[in-house]
C-alpha cells in the first residue's frame, strides 16, 4: 500500500521549514509520520508535498528552565520517557510517554506530531490540559497558545495554516503537588479508550489544588471542573473522593461510543479511574 505521490522537502533549519510551509502549495509537515503516513496510505490524506522536519536539530530536546520544562516539538516519546530531566521535574509526563503505543512507535512518534494531530484517543493532550501546557507556534513570528485553547475539536487544533509548532512549555508543578496518568488502553493499538490525568496538592489536610483531565471519552480531552470544585477545600478522604469522582461524567458530553466501549462504559471508566487515581495520590500525600 502506498501513498499518493508527493514532493519531498527536508529543510535543515526552522526558518527554512517555515518558508517552505508558507510557499509550497498543499504542503504538510512530516514529523515521526506515525499518524500521517498511515492516513496517507489509506488515501485519507494526500498532501501535494511533505516537509520533513525530523532533521531540524533546534526542534528537539528537553530543557529545564525556571518556569518549567521546555520540550522541542520533534522530541520523541521514547526520549521523553527516558529523560532524567523529565523524570525529575515532571514524572507524570515521562510516565505517560512510556505507555504510548509500543517501543517502535515511541522511537519515532513525536510530542509535536501527537498534539498537532489531536487524536481523541491520544495520551498527550490529556496531560497537556492537566498541566496547563503552553504551545509555541511559529510562522515567521511566534505566538503562544494555552492548552485549553489549543485543542479545538476532533483532529483539530488552533494552529493556523502555515504555522509550525516549535516547542511546548510544561509549567513547573508545585513541589507539594503530585500527579498521575492512568489509561484503559485498547488491547490492540494501546491508544486510550479512556485516559485520566489527575493532579493533587494537599495543604494542611485539605485539597488545595485538584485537577482532573479526561481523554479518550469525548472528541477532545476535557477538564472535569465540577468534580475538581467539589473536592477543592475538602479533606482527601475516601468518601469525599468518591463523591467528587461521581461528578466526572458531567464533563463528558456526547461520549464516544464504539464496539469496544459504549459511551456509558467510557463514563464509568473515567469515574472509577479518577477515584482510584485520586485515592492513590491522597494516600501518598498522607
Amino acid at each position, binding site marked *: 500500500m502506498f501513498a*499518493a505521490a508527493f514532493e519531498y522537502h527536508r529543510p535543515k533549519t526552522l526558518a527554512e521549514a517555515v518558508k517552505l510551509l508558507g510557499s509550497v502549495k498543499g504542503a504538510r509537515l512530516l514529523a515521526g509520520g506515525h499518524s500521517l503516513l498511515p492516513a496517507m*496510505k489509506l488515501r485519507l490524506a494526500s498532501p*501535494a508535498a511533505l516537509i520533513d522536519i525530523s532533521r531540524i536539530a533546534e526542534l528537539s530536546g528537553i530543557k529545564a528552565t525556571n518556569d518549567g520544562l521546555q520540550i522541542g516539538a520533534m522530541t520523541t516519546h521514547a526520549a521523553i520517557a527516558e529523560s532524567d530531566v523529565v523524570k525529575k521535574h515532571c514524572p507524570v509526563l515521562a510516565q505517560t510517554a512510556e505507555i504510548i503505543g*509500543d517501543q517502535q512507535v515511541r522511537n519515532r512518534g513525536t510530542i509535536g506530531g501527537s498534539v498537532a494531530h489531536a487524536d481523541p484517543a491520544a495520551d498527550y493532550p490529556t496531560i497537556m490540559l492537566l498541566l496547563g501546557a503552553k504551545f509555541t507556534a511559529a510562522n515567521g513570528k511566534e505566538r503562544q497558545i494555552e492548552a485549553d485553547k489549543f485543542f479545538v475539536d*476532533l*483532529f483539530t487544533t488552533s494552529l493556523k495554516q502555515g504555522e509550525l509548532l516549535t516547542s511546548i512549555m510544561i509549567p513547573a508543578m508545585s513541589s507539594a503537588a503530585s500527579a498521575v496518568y492512568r489509561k484503559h488502553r485498547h488491547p490492540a493499538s*494501546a491508544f486510550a479508550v479512556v485516559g485520566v490525568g489527575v493532579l493533587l496538592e494537599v495543604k494542611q489536610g485539605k485539597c488545595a489544588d485538584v485537577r482532573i483531565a479526561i481523554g479518550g471519552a469525548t472528541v477532545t480531552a476535557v477538564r472535569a471542573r465540577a468534580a475538581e470544585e467539589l473536592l477543592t477545600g475538602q479533606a482527601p478522604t475516601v468518601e469525599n473522593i468518591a463523591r467528587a469522582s461521581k461528578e466526572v461524567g458531567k464533563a463528558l458530553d456526547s461520549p464516544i461510543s464504539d464496539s469496544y466501549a459504549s459511551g456509558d462504559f467510557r463514563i464509568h471508566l473515567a469515574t472509577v479511574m479518577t477515584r482510584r487515581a485520586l485515592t492513590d495520590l491522597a494516600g501518598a500525600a498522607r
Partner: protein
Amino acid sequence: MKDPEKPLEAHESDNEKRAEVSRRDFLGTSVVLTAGACVAPILFNKSALASEGAVPGGPISSAVDVTLRVNGTAHALKLEPRVTLLDALREEMQLAGTKKGCDHGQCGACTVLVDGRRTLSCLTLAVMHDGDEITTIEGLAGSDELHPMQAAFIERDAFQCGYCTPGQIMSAVALLREPCGASDDDVRECMSGNICRCGAYPNIVAAVQDVRRSKTT
C-alpha cells in the same frame, strides 16, 4: 442523573440519550474503532489532516537520489519519496527477510534497526533515512555464526510459521540495550509491538530471557 458507579446493566434505561447519535458521535466512533492508525475518510475532510492538492492516482512524482546504508553496505538508489523503507528493502535491495504484515504499524513484522533503535520500516519513508545506519535480519549474523538472539530463538523453538520472527528478533535485539525490567512480564510489555499470529509468545519470552541472562552472567 446517571450514576456512573452503579453496575453497567443498570444503564440500559439511560440509553435514550444515545438514540440521537450525532455525526460527531459517529466520527468519534470510527476513530476509536480503528484506533492505531486509521480513521474514517470523512474525518479528514473536516480535520486539520484534510488533503490539499495531490490527486490520488495522479502523476507519479519524480524519483530522488537516496543512499541507504544497510547492514554496512551503502546502496545508492533512485526512489519516489512515497516508497517506504520496507518496500525499498524488499523490492529495491532484495532484502526480503524483513516482512510486511499489516503495512500500518500494528504488527511489528517489519521491525528493523535505524541507528540502533527499533523502527517500523512500513511507517517510515526511505528518503527520510538517507545516510542512516540500517540493520535488518540479514545483517545480524556473523559470517558463520548466528547472533545469540537468533540462536536462542532456534534453541527455544520460538516460532511456528516464522513470519513474525525477523521482526521479533530485531525487536528483541534492540530490547537488550533498552531499560526493560527483569521479569517475564516486563519482556512481554517491551515486546508488545510485535504480534505473533501463531502464538509462540511463551517461547519468544524464554528466548529473550535466555539471551539477557547470558549477558549478565
